[in-house]
């Protein structure tokens, strides 16, 4: 289960049009969401923190099993790249 959250647009809320553009540009095939635009706040950014981070979450307890931070400058390995080995380990039944 993968959830992609587009949590801000230049520090502000993200309209649906930008979510659509993002999904279409990168042909994202996983759950992709934004904060409810009517709330006009970046709740996810304030709660989960800045990009580019990946949380591996145990859905029974909602605990963050692992967290990976990628480069905000777009250089170096992404959070996904860093976490993929651990993810595969968890899916294979390891803890």
């Amino acid at each position: 289960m993968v959830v992609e959250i587009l949590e801000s647009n230049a520090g502000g809320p993200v309209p649906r049009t930008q979510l659509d553009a993002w999904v279409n540009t990168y042909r994202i095939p996983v759950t992709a969401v934004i904060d409810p635009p009517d709330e006009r706040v970046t709740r996810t950014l304030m709660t989960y923190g800045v990009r580019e981070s990946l949380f591996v979450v145990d859905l029974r307890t909602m605990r963050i099993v692992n967290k990976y931070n990628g480069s905000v400058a777009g250089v170096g390995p992404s959070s996904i790249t860093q976490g993929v080995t651990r993810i595969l380990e968890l899916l294979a039944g390891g803890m």
Partner: protein
Amino acid sequence: MRTRSRLLSALCALPVALAACSTDVAPPSNTTPDAAAVDALPADVALADLVTPVDVAEGPDAAPKPDVVAPADTAPTVGPYPAGPYGNRMGNVLANLSWEGYTNLEGSAVSTTLPYGPTSMQAVRETGRAFALVHVSEFF
């Protein structure tokens, strides 16, 4: 009651059919004599066709059993969202946020081809999956 008997036989025969998928497993000893008769039923006989109100009664004096009514809110049984304190560091409990967007569980299509609507971290829990990868991105 013959109809009831046929239904019970069909249900009893199910484990036998499953066991038959393995060549090493002997049939259970409680195979009913009617199992073969059930196998002989035409394939297009629907299970509902075998059930009548008569099936409810266990005997001539037995009162009919009431239908089982599902609760009004029949959500998947993952329980309430874990309590806080919440945080965003390894070992913390991630907060339950609400969002809107595209829920895509299968990964077989670009998400904008799917319905747009509300969702939440609790809804993610209710998928029944073991783990979630939650990735945050921003536009600049």
